[in-house]
């Protein structure tokens, strides 16, 4: 991967990648790099936000362009020399929407074999957290094979319920609170990716793996009553 710098202001630098990130491995490289950059600049760096096409660095002081570029280059070389990328693997419960007014039923025009095949493939396909955006706690999850992508709805819904699991083109997401939304709703999850009263308020990090698990309505209720409703997770790594 190559990158170039685009300065929005003397304190905001956009690092543009030559190709958008498209795999869990690439997002993990970025996660490692961001860690090095935070260590490199410490208090001078207010924060880093990532998206598939680049990262935005917010500095607290004006930066010299040449030295910024050199430090980015140096830390990037160190990143690609890593032999192991660590992350968490999570299992998220999913209660499918089986109603005949549901988006998935409409999408497949009620064809039972297509519906069943989609649901089986969905829970067999590990996804990864790509980046946060849209609203607090909304994670764009990547990794859907092209055949499983669903086109967005022509007209967005005015009110999508919180906890809705949705597919929009290449991404899967969970609506963290009630909001308008144009993605196809496939079911509900008890997992809140943001909870003001929970510690930690956010737990999913870009690069983490997500595996969906079909649950029944009573299992869903059980989850909702769990203190802190954090899902199951395990340590995981990609070795090179």
């Amino acid at each position, binding site marked *: 991967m190559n990158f170039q710098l*685009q300065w*929005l202001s003397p304190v*905001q630098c956009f690092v543009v990648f030559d190709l*958008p990130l498209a795999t869990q491995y690439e997002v993990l490289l970025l996660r490692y790099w961001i860690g090095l950059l935070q260590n490199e600049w410490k208090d001078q760096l207010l924060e880093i*936000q990532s998206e598939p096409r680049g990262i*935005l660095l917010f500095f607290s002081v004006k930066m010299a362009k040449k030295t910024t570029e050199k430090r980015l280059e140096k830390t990037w070389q160190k990143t690609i020399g890593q032999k192991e990328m660590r992350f968490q693997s999570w299992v998220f419960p999913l209660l499918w929407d089986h109603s005949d007014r549901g988006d998935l039923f409409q999408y497949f025009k009620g064809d039972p074999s297509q519906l069943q095949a989609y649901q089986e493939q969905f829970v067999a396909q590990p996804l990864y957290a790509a980046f946060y955006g*849209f609203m*607090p706690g909304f994670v764009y999850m990547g990794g859907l094979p092209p055949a499983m992508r669903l086109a967005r709805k022509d007209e967005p819904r005015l009110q999508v319920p919180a906890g809705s699991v949705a597919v929009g083109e290449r991404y899967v997401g969970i609506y963290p609170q009630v909001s308008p939304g144009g993605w196809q709703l496939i079911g509900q999850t008890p997992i809140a990716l943001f909870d003001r009263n929970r510690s930690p*308020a956010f737990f999913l990090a870009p690069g983490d793996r997500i595996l969906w698990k079909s649950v029944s309505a009573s299992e869903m209720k059980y989850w909702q009553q769990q203190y802190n409703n954090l899902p199951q997770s395990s340590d995981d790594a990609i070795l090179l």
Partner: protein
Amino acid sequence: MRSFCKVIETGMYTSVQDGGRIGWRHRGVPVSGPMDRESFTQANAVLGNPEDAACLEITQMGPTLLFNDPTWVSVSGAQISIEKNKVKQQMDSGLFCDVGDVLSLGQTEKGVRSYLAFQGGLQTEIYLGSRAQFYPISPSATLEKGEKLYFHPTSATTVPPSKVSKGPIASLHQEDKLLVHKGLDWDACPAAIREALFSTTMLLGSNNRMGYRIEAALPKSDNQPLSGIVVPGTVQLTPGGNLLVAMQDGQVTGGYLRILQLDPAAINFLAQQASGKKLQLQWAG
């Protein structure tokens, strides 16, 4: 006992704002903070407060507050009528509110946002490092009737804070130019739109703390890029040929072309404009 005043009337859209919730964009949380930072800074400066001290941001119609404890306050930004116990008061100067005083702010003129500062800054609840109200990070987006607003204790014998005499607030000027820089996706902006951008008179549409819609009637285009980072002042082009300007509570990503970026001063200026205002874009020097 903590010092406080009680919210008798909330006003139209009054919220607590401080320097902003910095460092949470990577979890999807907008920075929030004052829409017109210049007026906010002035309100704090009058009382000798820290630059980022929490104030009330008032939109078009101000609140009525009943003081349970004494403190000094000041109001800057859009011109607004101020009454303490039904006696008219001045803007941009320290004003002592004693136990039992009722402070009432009216409607804004020449601008839409005023800032009410409290000596030492409001001491409301901190969420993710900031007192700025933004739902769902804070439990509500605006003041609620009957709510207690906490502040530092002050006694009547405290020396009145010195006035700060600054020039007129630049964001309140009455021009019709919006200063812009090239945005992250400028290179992908269709040529027909680039040509029309600076010769079109545009109309401010609906707006709130998330953003301003600008009715621009530019040529239609069908660019649908991947979702990308949006910061306050980012101008996106909709397929229908209008512009969306992200403001302090704006979503941290957007799905349209980011053709322009407002000059920092233009963000403050825009924050004082109401829908119906006619504007022209101009390159910032």
